[in-house]
């Protein structure tokens, strides 16, 4: 449909409420990457990220009649992504822990020293990220990992760019402290 490219999220969402498939596809294509980025701050397995992001869109469509087009669409979708990801974590916490533990063990046995060190570092990074407050972790993910601007991350999360920058700053400090055993992290920061 002509003009769809420029239509705001809220206009598209209103059209989805009326059953417009094209508007739905526009919104999906516009948000697949941001939603996956948000989900990736909760879960780490690529296949699981895809599944949770897809569930987010399914839940969003089911709930679309409850969305108020007078309010920003992105934070509404972001909240759904958070809830779906949290539910997934709660439901699969035990399975995930067992799976990762066995995988780590297998990796250490099978891989050379350097790769084993990498695996150890990744595990440490994952633990440090997991210890961050949720919003701080998501802001860090969007800005530092996915390389979004603070304004874009703030638009998605429904917070100001300044708050995003503050979250990212504190996340970096926390991670740097948690990963201090790896000298190159602190050295590169100092240099």
């Amino acid at each position, binding site marked *: 449909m002509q003009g769809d490219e420029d239509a705001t999220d809220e206009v598209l969402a*209103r*059209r*989805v*409420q*009326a*059953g*417009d*498939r*094209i*508007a*739905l*596809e526009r919104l*999906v*294509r516009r948000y*697949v*990457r941001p939603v*996956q*980025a948000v989900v*990736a701050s909760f879960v*780490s397995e690529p296949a699981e*990220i*895809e599944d949770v*992001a*897809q569930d987010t*869109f*399914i839940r969003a*469509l*089911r709930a679309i009649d409850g969305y108020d087009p007078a309010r920003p669409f992105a934070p509404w979708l972001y909240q759904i992504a958070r809830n779906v990801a949290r539910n997934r974590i709660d439901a699969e916490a035990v399975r995930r822990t067992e799976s990762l533990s066995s995988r780590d063990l297998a990796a250490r046995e099978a891989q050379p020293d350097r790769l084993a060190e990498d695996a150890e*570092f990744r595990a440490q*990074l994952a633990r440090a*990220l997991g210890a961050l*407050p*949720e*919003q*701080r972790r998501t802001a860090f*993910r969007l800005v*530092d*990992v*996915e*390389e979004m601007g603070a304004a874009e991350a703030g638009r998605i999360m*429904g*917070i100001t760019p*300044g*708050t995003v*920058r*503050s*979250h990212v*700053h*504190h996340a*970096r*400090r926390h*991670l*740097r*402290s948690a*990963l201090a055993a790896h000298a*190159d*992290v602190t050295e*590169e*920061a*100092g240099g």
Partner: protein
Amino acid sequence: MDDIEHHEPSPPNGDPEGAPLPRSHLPEPRPVAADAYWDHYARRVMDELEPMLAVRKKPAAGAVEESSPQSSWMTEIGDRWGVTALLAAASLAALLAVGIGERTAEPRSPSPDDMALALIAAGGDPTLLWERLGIPADPVLAWLTFDGVRP
């Protein structure tokens, strides 16, 4: 919002502890925006969503913006009950004209206006539809009758 209620101070300029971590020490990012992966993934998501959208049976795009809440409501009833309601109305009219009419002292045949108003006021509820026409109806039997005539 949820996790941090207070606003923390902005980082001081030049704070090395707040500098970005080396790229090699970060988790893997999602594919870049232009990657063909996103086209495949969006298609996969749409494959899940399209059937859901189809069963919503909403009016066509733009109809909601241009129409009043009342006409939207009537369209909704029409979409959901159009054929069923017409069949039920025809059955009801036949009953009134033949069966019930012979047994009542003062036969009451609803006018076409009465019938149309009753259909709208019933809002798709067969029990209400019968009651609007002055016929006390058992809810279960009313629904069974409607299900029986539904195409």
